[in-house]
């Protein structure tokens, strides 16, 4: 096997036809246990190394390999040969060494205690089982991911980013009046001890109570409270509105609206490299740009976009450290450098969900939504999202309803945010390459379709 340091050597000895080149090496080690009735029923381990290369002569070409026996010089040469077919006039820009961030080594504790993973999972299982009479079975997945991303190029840049994420997921089966119901809840942290079981249990019970014995509902416009999981689901697709690529090509409903008001004063969106509510940390992006915390929407005003080097240069600004590769699943290894978030979330408010339900008074608490991938159009902002929820009367939960869709336009939804709750929830997404977060959102009104 060729040592990875040999890639660095190959970059220092580029053939004369290659002006510049870059290598991004992603190493992932993953441990996972699934526990049911206190016993491990499934376990897995993986250790993989992926190599992304790009090389520029007159144009820029890409190559990707998992074959660790390939000659590094050949992989870079392959990327260069691929550039010869490019007819576009643009070439990629590579980062230069960044003062203070070169050779950055983040020390993390990479020890993995399998017994601790098992005990934690069994403990969560017991807590969830005891939390509600309806819950019959709980299957808990306990996972630790250790990831290192290293970017180095022929200009001397050498940046690395490491993280260790501890993750717990509970799959719950419940019985209520002879019917079976399922729900799932997951949280991550830098350490298992930081995962808040009671937060997970509250989420599970809330989801289940939104399902039990659900009936139908009259369509119309209603004031609603969108649960935090619904906010996350919507933003998992809707973040693309803020992509510099989509903005520039005119395929975002926000194209041309930078520095305009696009939401209510209660709508603020951040993108940050780390957050206490998740174990994920993104210190640099796949081009080696250092990740920064920045504001995308400030009290309803669109003040920033997500940029990689290319989109930033087209808008005469600097990369925000948002170069990424995974937008949505494509069925192939995504090698193209695009724009993705790091930890993108809506700012939480001060009030609890109970307080906001009282403020809602009469309306609908949307407790769950699904299939947002196929039901939001980023270009137009139109959405029609299947969901279920609870009718709220006089500030109290009245009855559960299902078979609904909420529909409208995302920009109208942003403008109708009356308040945000204090229950920010952050979820990993898409091959763990970024995270999305939202608190529960109180909306003045939204169209609910039901029958």
């Amino acid at each position: 096997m060729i040592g990875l340091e040999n890639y660095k050597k190959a970059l220092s000895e580029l053939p004369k036809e290659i002006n510049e080149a870059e290598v991004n090496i992603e190493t992932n080690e993953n441990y996972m246990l699934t526990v049911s009735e206190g016993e491990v029923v499934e376990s897995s381990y993986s250790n993989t190394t992926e190599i992304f290369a790009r090389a520029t002569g007159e144009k820029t070409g890409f190559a990707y390999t998992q074959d660790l026996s390939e000659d590094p010089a050949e992989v870079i040469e392959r990327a260069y040969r691929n550039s010869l077919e490019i007819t576009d006039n643009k070439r990629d820009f590579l980062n230069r060494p960044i003062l203070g961030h070169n050779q950055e080594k983040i020390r993390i504790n990479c020890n993995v205690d399998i017994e601790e993973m098992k005990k934690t999972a069994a403990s969560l299982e017991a807590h969830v089982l005891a939390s509600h009479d309806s819950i019959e079975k709980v299957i808990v997945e306990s996972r630790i991911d250790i990831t290192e991303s290293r970017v180095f190029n022929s200009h001397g840049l050498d940046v690395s980013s490491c993280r260790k994420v501890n993750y717990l997921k509970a799959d719950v089966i419940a019985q209520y009046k002879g019917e079976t119901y399922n729900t799932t809840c997951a949280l991550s942290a830098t350490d298992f001890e930081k995962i808040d079981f009671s937060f997970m249990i509250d989420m599970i019970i809330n989801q289940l109570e939104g399902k039990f014995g659900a009936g139908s509902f009259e369509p119309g416009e209603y004031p609603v409270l969108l649960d935090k999981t619904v906010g996350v689901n919507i933003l998992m697709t809707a973040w693309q509105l803020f992509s510099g690529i989509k903005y520039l090509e005119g395929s975002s409903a926000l194209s041309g609206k930078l520095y305009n008001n696009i939401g209510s004063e209660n709508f603020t969106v951040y993108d940050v490299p780390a957050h206490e509510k998740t174990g994920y940390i993104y210190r640099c992006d796949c081009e080696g740009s250092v990740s920064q915390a920045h504001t995308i929407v400030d009290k309803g005003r669109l003040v920033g976009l997500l940029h990689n080097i290319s989109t930033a240069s087209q808008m005469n600004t600097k990369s925000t450290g948002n170069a990424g590769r995974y937008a949505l699943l494509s069925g192939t290894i995504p090698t193209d450098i695009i724009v993705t978030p790091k930890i993108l979330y809506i700012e939480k408010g001060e009030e609890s969900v109970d307080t906001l339900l009282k403020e809602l008074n009469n309306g609908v608490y949307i407790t769950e939504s699904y299939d947002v991938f196929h039901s939001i159009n980023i270009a137009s902002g139109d959405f029609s999202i299947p969901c279920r929820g609870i009718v709220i009367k006089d500030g109290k939960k009245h009855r559960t309803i299902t078979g609904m869709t909420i529909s409208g336009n995302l920009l109208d939804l942003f403008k109708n945010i009356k308040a945000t709750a204090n229950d920010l929830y952050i979820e990993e997404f898409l091959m763990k390459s970024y995270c999305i977060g939202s608190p529960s959102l109180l909306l003045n009104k939204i169209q609910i379709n039901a029958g």
Partner: protein
Amino acid sequence: MSLSENQVAKILETALSSGGDFAELFIENKDELQIKYEDESVKRLTTTRIKGAGIYLLSGTRSVYVYTNDLSLDKIMNTAKLAAELLNQKNSVFNRNILFEYRKSNNPNKFIIYPSSVEHKDKINILREISLAAKSVDSRIVQMAVTYFDTDQNISIYNSEGLFTWDRRISSRVRLNATISDGANYYDDWDDFTRPQGFEAFNNKSDYITFAKEFIKGLASSTEGISLQSCNVPVVFEAGACGTFWHETCGHQLEASAIASNNSDFVGMIGKKVASDKVTLIDDGSIPGLYGTSGIDDEGHPTQKNILIENGILKGYLVDRLGGRLLNMSSTGNGRRQSYSYAPTSRMTNTYLAAGNDDENEMIKSIDKGVFVKRLGGGTGGREFSLAVKEGYLIEKGEITKRLKGLTLNGRGIDLIKRVDRVGKKLENEGGSFCGASSGLCPVTSFQPRMRISNMFVGGK
């Protein structure tokens, strides 16, 4: 490096050293090419090489999966040792010598022009033709990208029962993505031209040119759609790719993993009436020419025709090796995975509603007010499903009239399949797409004859 049979046997024996009654080594080599064409120029060309191995270990219904892309013998042996440590069950000791017997895989899909034998310029020419054809349809296109993909996957499977087999799967695909503006609003969409073939997929120019033109026509007409007030009406689903309805309403719930985890309305229903008499639902990974077809599944079982529902009676599930142990059933050749980096699990292949005896025109003519779904987008399955309607129309007094927009269908699958009151005579298949689930993205097709649900909730506004 390639491993000898003796080395493979040692790896499997090492994995089984702390108990376990079954071990498997799955080795994958896959090459992919991706070319992105935009604004009449080639923007990106990327070659991708995927190479790795996974070890699957079973002890009764307990499973361990480990994988690595470091294929040095030492590293694979260490990975096998770790699998044994993770299992750590001393209740049984595997003490047989493993002798492999080669079993030939007969892939019903035949490949003529291997992607690696074709120059990039010929592939780029296809993109150019598709781009020109698409742009000729509507001048309001503000953004368009055409992306070419080909894949050539070779898998080898060895297991402790002495099986050695391999399969080669090749596919070609073009993704067309476009945004249209009517001056006030933007509308975007994408679609794939997919074939389980080599470059012969593009032998017939009219196939991919028609795909491009029809895609843009559909996108252009979406600018003129009207919203439908929520209502309960008969819904007719067009023949062909609207078979996604079956994939989401039933297919996922019939996978052994859903049944074993009690995450399905079909648990304990075999032999019972679950759908209308008109419903016969089949999954068949052995049909030549379809995207979900292969010679063997990803556990080495030959693919086969599986009748899931026959005349409304539930007949069986989609079963992989572990699912078979959990349900006390035999594998149905449905153990699938995207790559070595996923353990296999029960997945669909080519899922279709069998042809019926009803007249295709009558099922529309007999509707006073209803919805005609011509094209479905993706969706999600489970006890409750949702499906995005990409192209739908109003039916008024027996005629297809106005284009509808913003339609999403959702409901409980097991309720809706009881309301199938018409199934047409002409079964039409489709190009195929990916299905995403716990073992990654797998190529599938979902198709049907024209079919009608007597009454279901639809609505945009």
